[in-house]
């Protein structure tokens, strides 16, 4: 006979307010196998826990049922309590009478009846609980960081500084990301390149960091501690060991295409280095536009290269590597403005996005930092900025706030006035959001010291009239419609997730929200982890954020990865599947449904009537199994059971509730 102890928690009034604890205790006393029943206001408190420990010894309990909150909250706590009293932790069963009962019901009588039923089920299940011993899995002492913008750079540096190997993979030819495109940064106005490039150089020279630029992660398999990753190193068409970065090839290449780094404002060559401070400072041939690759003619770059580094025969290379943890830092895009015809983006050269404005005012940009109207190369006098183009717009854009636009627009107003004291900025806004250290002060400076005129309202339409842009808007504070003859209009386009974010998430087995930003494990308490153990997030791939937040998050993600890598082994959850070889028919339906590739086939030699026959069986790799239970549902003879959730246990619960 079992010796089961039931402990009922009040959770203050959380449970006791809706559930009659006394009645529950009385009912539990009569349940089969129950030899002790107790209650306490806060079972998870030290007093509650010591009461459990003492009772286990005094009453010689061999199973525990804790009727309290969700097992997600305190299952681990009570398992530790049991272990401390010498009881195998997997002999503890939780009856969730808070989230599943007291919180969702109002009538005390009915809630009490339900709480009793839930405890009866837990007691019935507990009777079947077996002692389980957690195994260990090894941890590969290397991290993978995907995306080398400021988030990826920071995370890679932090992990590498802790002494672990890091592979940093970047899709484009250079690391640096969005931050490399920016001019100054708010609210301090320090030069973006000046603070970023030293970090880029650190990454390139760090003994523990391997840089894979112009490379993409193609496949991710395995599990925490043991990810198997395939990386495609795209053919750069340049032998990196030979190239000296002299740049002759760039000058001589006859093909020009839009420069991605400069937002298409100027051209680059088909063989190119994205920007002067690129790391690595080695060109790449864009095979989709190169004349050699399109027509088999040209080869000018090969002829002029003094180092003989140009290699048209180079092929993509596939690397297969193992990692303990992964940090995902793939960044963001800006919203395409096709749906916002009223702003005329793409229809007039003086209507630009904020990112294009960054390039135009940047000393290393296409105009050498001289802000000009692209229509006539003149310096603009009146510049209109429009906030929330596609942000907070559930009809045609994104319902969320892009968070950084208020601040960078204030920054643009300040930079403009500093550079061109005669210019005038007009800013249309819905709300100015300045939550952040020194942010509000910075915004006020734009208004008070730099003369930016803010209109509380938004723009209806921009009408190009002659060489001016007639901006029609509203100022709701004065209840007047506003017309401005502008020379330039700058649109703060919404931040959005990368186009392929959902595919990346699927590859990694993590979640995305409705806007395809990656989802953190808990919005408050686990902000840089994902629901997949060993995969961490940082930067704008998780949601709009500015540089300080991104860097902080990257450091946090790195810390999480370091915690993981600093362990040689991980404790494996013993609640995994097991095959009863006596019953298994070898149909292998389980292999088909297993999402973790944890089940394989094996053959067993077996003597039948004196002859040896070979039987086909399923076998579970306990390190790979995540305990999802799909196989147990697929198994026709019922040969696979999930430990701690066996068919016997589940049926006992069902019977206890229904019979």
């Amino acid at each position: 006979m079992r010796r089961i102890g039931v402990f009922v928690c009040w959770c203050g009034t959380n449970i006791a307010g809706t559930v009659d604890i006394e009645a529950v205790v009385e009912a539990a006393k009569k349940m089969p196998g129950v030899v002790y029943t107790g209650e306490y206001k806060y079972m998870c408190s030290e007093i509650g826990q010591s009461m459990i420990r003492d009772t286990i010894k005094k009453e010689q309990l061999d199973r525990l049922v804790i009727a309290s909150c969700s097992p997600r909250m305190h299952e681990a706590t009570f398992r530790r309590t049991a272990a401390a009293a010498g009881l195998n932790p997997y002999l503890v069963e939780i009856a969730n009478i808070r989230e599943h009962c007291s919180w969702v019901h109002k009538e005390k009588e009915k809630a009490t009846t339900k709480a009793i039923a839930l405890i009866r089920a837990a007691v019935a299940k507990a009777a079947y609980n077996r002692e389980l011993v957690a195994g260990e899995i090894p941890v590969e002492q290397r991290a993978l960081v995907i995306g080398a913008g400021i988030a990826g750079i920071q995370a890679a540096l932090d992990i590498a500084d802790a002494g672990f190997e890091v592979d940093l993979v970047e899709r484009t030819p250079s690391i640096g990301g969005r931050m490399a495109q920016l001019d100054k940064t708010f609210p301090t106005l320090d030069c973006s390149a000046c603070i970023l490039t030293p970090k880029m150089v650190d990454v390139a020279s760090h003994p523990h960091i391997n840089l894979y630029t112009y490379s993409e992660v193609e496949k991710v398999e395995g599990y925490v501690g043991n990810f198997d990753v395939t990386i495609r190193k795209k053919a750069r068409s340049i032998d990196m060991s030979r190239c000296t970065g002299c740049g002759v090839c760039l000058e001589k290449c006859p093909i020009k295409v839009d420069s991605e780094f400069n937002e298409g404002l100027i051209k680059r060559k088909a063989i190119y280095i994205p920007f002067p401070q690129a790391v690595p400072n080695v060109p790449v041939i864009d095979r989709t536009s190169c004349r050699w690759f399109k027509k088999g003619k040209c080869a000018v770059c090969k002829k002029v290269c003094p180092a003989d580094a140009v290699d048209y025969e180079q092929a993509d290379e596939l690397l297969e590597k193992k990692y303990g943890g992964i940090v995902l830092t793939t960044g963001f895009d800006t919203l395409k403005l096709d749906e916002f015809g009223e702003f005329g983006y793409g229809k007039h050269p003086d209507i630009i996005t904020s990112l294009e404005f960054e390039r135009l005012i940047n000393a290393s940009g296409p105009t050498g930092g001289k802000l000009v109207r692209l229509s006539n190369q003149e310096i603009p006098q009146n510049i209109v900025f429009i906030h929330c183009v596609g942000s907070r717009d559930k009809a045609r854009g994104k319902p969320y706030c892009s968070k950084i636009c208020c601040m960078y627009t204030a920054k643009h107003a300040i930079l403009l006035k500093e550079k061109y004291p005669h210019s005038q900025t007009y800013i249309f806004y819905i709300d100015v959001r300045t939550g952040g250290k020194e942010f509000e002060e910075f915004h006020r400076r734009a208004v008070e010291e730099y003369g930016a005129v803010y209109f509380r309202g938004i723009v209806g339409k921009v009408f190009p009239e002659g060489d001016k842009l007639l901006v029609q808007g509203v100022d709701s504070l004065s209840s007047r419609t506003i017309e401005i003859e502008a020379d330039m209009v700058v649109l703060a386009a919404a931040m959005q997730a990368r186009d392929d974010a959902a595919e990346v998430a699927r590859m990694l087995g993590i979640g995305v929200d409705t806007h395809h930003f990656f989802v953190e494990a808990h919005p408050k308490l686990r902000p840089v982890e994902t629901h997949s153990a060993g995969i961490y997030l940082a930067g704008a791939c998780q949601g709009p954020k500015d540089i300080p937040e991104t860097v902080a998050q990257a450091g946090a993600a790195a810390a999480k990865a370091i915690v993981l890598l600093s362990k040689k082994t991980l404790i494996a959850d013993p609640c995994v599947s097991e095959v009863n070889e006596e019953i298994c028919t070898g149909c292998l339906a389980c292999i088909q449904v297993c999402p973790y590739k944890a089940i394989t086939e094996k053959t067993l030699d077996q003597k039948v009537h004196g002859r040896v026959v070979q039987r086909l069986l399923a076998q579970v790799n306990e390190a790979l199994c995540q305990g999802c239970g799909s196989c147990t549902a697929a198994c026709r003879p019922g040969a696979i059971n999930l430990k701690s959730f066996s068919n016997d246990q589940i049926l006992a619960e069902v019977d206890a509730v229904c019979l």
Partner: protein
Amino acid sequence: MRFSYYPGCTLKTTATELERSALKAAKALGIELVEQKEWQCCGAVFPLVRDEIAAFLSSIRSLAAARDAGEKLVTICAACHHVIKRTNHLIKTDTEVREKVNGYLQLETSYLGEGSVIHYLEMLRDELGFDELAQKIKQPLTGRKIAAYYGCLLLRPAAIMAFDNAENPRIIEDFLFALGATAVYYPYRTECCGVYLSLNNTQIATDMVEKIVSSAFSYGAEALVDACPLCHYNLLELQKKTPQGKPLLPVYYFTELLEEALGLKEQTAVRKDRK
């Protein structure tokens, strides 16, 4: 190619030129437009009040008749198109209206919104195809600079009308291209002309018309083309009331240009005195 055709009251009276040219061009293109036998006035504005179903009945009768004939319903007047298209959407999505209307009409087969109504321009684009149309042009309008005026009723609300991108439409420009003409883009081509106000707020409507016409003119247009009898009237008549006192640009129905390009009539007049 055969369609049921809904003319509407205006095409039979003040906008006879629109209907005449449209039908003549269709015939030349091998498109059969069969006028519905018992069409009634569409009601002219789409009613937002759901508790009076009377205003929906005419549209539903025509849509049901086209369905029974196994044909799409073609409209030419932008206002009729607006009303019929929105009514069709309403009956598809609003159960209460659907039940009331069918309860009243007692059709042999209830009408649930399964029919479809298309504008003449959509017919040219989606059924015939502008490439096919370009093949049939006999007198291309080469060198003619024409500005499209879209008005409100075909474009908005965009999700229901599903006619074109409401802020950046191209159907009329593509049509002009097929005719061999040069389309003039100007920022007022989708702005309202204010015709609903020309009865009791003439000055506002006149200002609106002046903006549209002078913008098209400043972008180099020689003529305006439209697809709506109401806009057409407004653009023509109110130009006379602008400070200049006389029209800046001639205004044509798109079908008149089609007729000309198909070689069915003499060249339409344009302002030649400009550049």
